[in-house]
């Protein structure tokens, strides 16, 4: 797993991993309440357990300029309390009933989830519905939680050179004030400047039924979920319809590169991020083609990149690719490699380029495409074996503006995409100059920072 991308894209990557899932995948029941709340039910009766996930279609990309980190700060504050359940009572009550919970913030969405025994579903639906509109924000809590988040930032970025490099990649890939160029956790100066009024306005604007997706997975029927959703979520009134930030593809410019030298780095690494279409694109065939390309080039130890760089040439300890197609805005395709001692990152970059170009010229060898597809389609069976995979995949897709069919139709799209489609998509991707090459390196030899 490439460290650079393992932290902040967790939610997106989870979606992507589960993406290899799909019409035949989770077979959800989907309906809408009168107030616009979309509800997805995925039945899974293996054990008497349910997961509730509430996704809001608001993330770091919706923050006003100068207020980065606000979506995430609000996520933390959502645990502080309402009039009905004040002072952390949400978590205390949930724990008393044996439940587990967490929350996450990404560029496109913010989510809250609990896993409980099936007879506690009503309780968590009441609690989650209550905090959709009734959160009480207090200055004391805001200030304490700001400190917590500054610690989180130190942990993820300050203490972690690859986290720092990731920020630089995002900025280079999405230049100007593009919303995807911002750190989800926020710039420190912004985090300290966010006021209670900012948070209240943001909460009022974005936390409402029509801007949310409720997913319930587990030992429950659609009828039971419907009845409980009517009882707890249906009475909630909508706020004004939120306006999403525009997320255009940046204009085509020159490829750029970022280099981070840091004395703490002991294992260098290289990666190349290229802008790519996401599921928001109308051309779903191209998305499927890129997904197969990802698997051919970078999926596991028999992939072309691993075989060439790690096994045959012996210049890398890791090599692969990763395609993130889940975004509401532009997606991205990543190539990465980590060198053996003494090998330059440029050598990895050229070896990767050679493999990609070879594929673009020569395409698949006999039988290769069929094998890759078979393996990918098997993953749609495996994801059904997990309680929460469908909640992550469908919740993430719908919250990012995609459709149920974008998930459920996945096996069919993979089955029908052709070798020519994949070559074409690879050629287009590889020609796109909107790319950032990134190097993570130890301190420069003459900088005196050998430690």
């Amino acid at each position, binding site marked *: 797993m490439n*460290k650079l991308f393992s932290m*902040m894209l*967790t939610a997106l990557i989870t979606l992507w991993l589960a993406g290899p899932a799909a019409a035949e995948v989770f077979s959800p029941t989907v309906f809408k309440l009168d107030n616009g709340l979309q509800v997805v039910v995925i039945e899974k*009766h*293996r*054990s008497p*357990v349910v997961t509730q996930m509430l996704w809001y279609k608001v993330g770091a990309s919706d923050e006003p300029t100068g207020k980065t980190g606000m979506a995430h700060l609000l996520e933390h504050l959502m*645990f502080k309390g309402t009039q009905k359940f004040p002072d*952390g009572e949400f*978590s*205390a009550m949930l*724990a*008393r*009933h*044996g439940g587990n*919970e*967490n*929350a*996450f*913030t990404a560029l496109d969405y913010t989510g809250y989830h609990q896993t*409980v*025994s099936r007879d506690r579903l009503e309780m968590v639906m009441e609690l989650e519905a209550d905090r959709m509109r009734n959160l009480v924000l207090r200055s004391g809590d805001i200030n*304490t*939680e*700001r*400190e*917590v*988040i*500054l*610690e*989180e930032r*130190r*942990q993820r970025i*300050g*203490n*972690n050179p690859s986290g720092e490099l990731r920020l630089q990649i995002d900025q280079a890939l999405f230049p100007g004030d593009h919303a995807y160029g911002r750190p989800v956790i926020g710039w420190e100066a912004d985090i300290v400047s966010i006021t209670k009024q900012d948070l209240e306005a943001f909460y009022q604007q974005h936390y409402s039924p029509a801007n949310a997706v409720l997913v319930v997975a587990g030992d429950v029927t659609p009828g039971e979920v419907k009845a409980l959703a009517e009882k707890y979520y249906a009475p909630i009134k909508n706020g004004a319809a939120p306006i999403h930030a525009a997320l255009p593809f940046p204009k085509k410019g020159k490829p750029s590169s970022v280099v981070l030298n840091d004395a*703490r780095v*002991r*294992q260098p690494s290289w990666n190349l991020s290229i802008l790519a279409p996401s599921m928001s694109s109308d051309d779903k065939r191209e998305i499927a083609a890129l997904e197969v390309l990802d698997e051919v080039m970078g999926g*596991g*130890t*028999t992939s072309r990149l691993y*075989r060439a760089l790690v*096994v045959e040439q*012996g210049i890398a*300890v*890791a090599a692969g690719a990763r395609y993130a197609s889940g975004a509401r805005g532009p997606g991205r395709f990543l190539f990465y490699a980590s060198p*053996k001692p003494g090998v330059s990152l440029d050598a990895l970059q050229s070896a990767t380029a050679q493999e990609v170009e070879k594929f673009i010229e020569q395409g698949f060898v006999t039988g290769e495409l069929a*094998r890759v597809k*078979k*393996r990918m389609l*098997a*993953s749609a*069976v*495996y994801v059904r*074996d*997990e*309680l*929460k995979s469908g909640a992550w995949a469908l919740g993430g897709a719908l919250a990012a503006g995609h459709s149920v069919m974008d998930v459920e139709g996945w096996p069919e799209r993979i089955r029908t995409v052709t070798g020519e489609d994949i070559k074409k998509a690879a050629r287009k991707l590889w020609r796109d100059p909107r790319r950032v090459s990134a190097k993570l390196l130890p301190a420069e030899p003459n900088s005196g920072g050998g*430690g």
Partner: protein
Amino acid sequence: MARSNAILWAGLALVLMLAVAPIKLAYATEVKSVKSPLGMTAWLVEDHTNPVISMSFAFKGAAALDPVGKAGLANLVSALLDEGAGDLDSQAFQRRLEDGAITLRFSAGKDNFSGNFRTLTENMDEATELLRLAVTSARFDVEPVERIRAQVMANVRRELEDADTIASDALFAQLFPSHGYGRRTDGTLETIGAIERKDLVAFANQRLVRSRLTIGISGDITEGEAQKFIENAFGDLPMGEVEPPVAEVQAQASGMLSVIKRDFPQSAILFGHGGIKRDDPDFYAALIMNHILGGGSFTSRLYEEVREKRGLVYSIGTGLAAFDHAGAIIGSAGTANARAAETIAIIRQQWGHMAEGGATDAELADAKTYVIGSFPLRFTSSRAIARILVSMQLNHLGADYLDKRKDIINAVNADDVRRVAARLLDSDRLNMVVVGQPQGVTEGVVGQP
């Protein structure tokens, strides 16, 4: 950007899983014990809702037995068993796994060498054959050995960039000097480099034996099929010796605070001292006590005092590390260098507070309902169930444990928690390792200038 994550637990995951993974199910999940003609047993939970079969297994004896100069041996073997076996070289073996969409992974803990296996029902025969080859006929060819060795070394270098790992390594070395529990499971650059092919071969021959094997299976498979499966997969293994000799050991802690100066803006703080073993009569009282002190993710005393009230950390928590031959209680926190001294003081204070006063009745009641209620939430996939079945057997819990667990937890009373807190916790002996540039923190033993 989750609300909380626990970086420390990466390092302690296996250990904590064994400590906490004790299981329960107050409903109709039937655990069957399956016996093969050769006399091998496996625990099985049938589930035919999805065409997937998962198996977990463990051989007793792993990294704690690595020779001192070759720490990382068990780990290196675990990464090589699927890199060529029988007539199949590395790429051929990997290709057959991938073509069958078969998962076959091995991992080394301190006490157990584990495997996880998952296949679609339709590929069961192929998957079984690949598993058989991996455990009986691994090749350890030069190319994969050197490739994987380089990968493990790269991982070690990467871990050495991480403040929590540096702190955790140092703390375990203090608690268990000259014992396998005090050494890194994946070894050091030097010890990994010293491992020879003959060490790998000897490990596979001597350690992967039937007498040390525990098996859990869940998924789309019947009792009869499971019998055949374990026989086909493991029947060719030798019987071997029964129990590998790991020395009993007491964790050594004297209240030492050590600082490892590194250029991090946030100090990683690891703390711990002796704990409790899984088979101790007070284990469940300790489990509850730990939950109240620092185990409960959003509700513990440490979470409340250090994070909720003061905003000093993002992550803080404690866990019981219950090894087969030692116990420890370990905690972690991360705070800005300038606030390290305050954070450390509060942790010590809370430690002492629990040692002296135990828990309140309300805390005890809440902890019990959590520990009882959260347990069934783990039965969420065939993989998870297979792992739990192995853990139950390793901890000698009995197939009826799922039914009995609730009563066992409910039987823990306030006196038990007070007794176990007084017995285990000692803020004057709590070792701390701080990695970063902590301010106002003095190295040395508590109470001694």
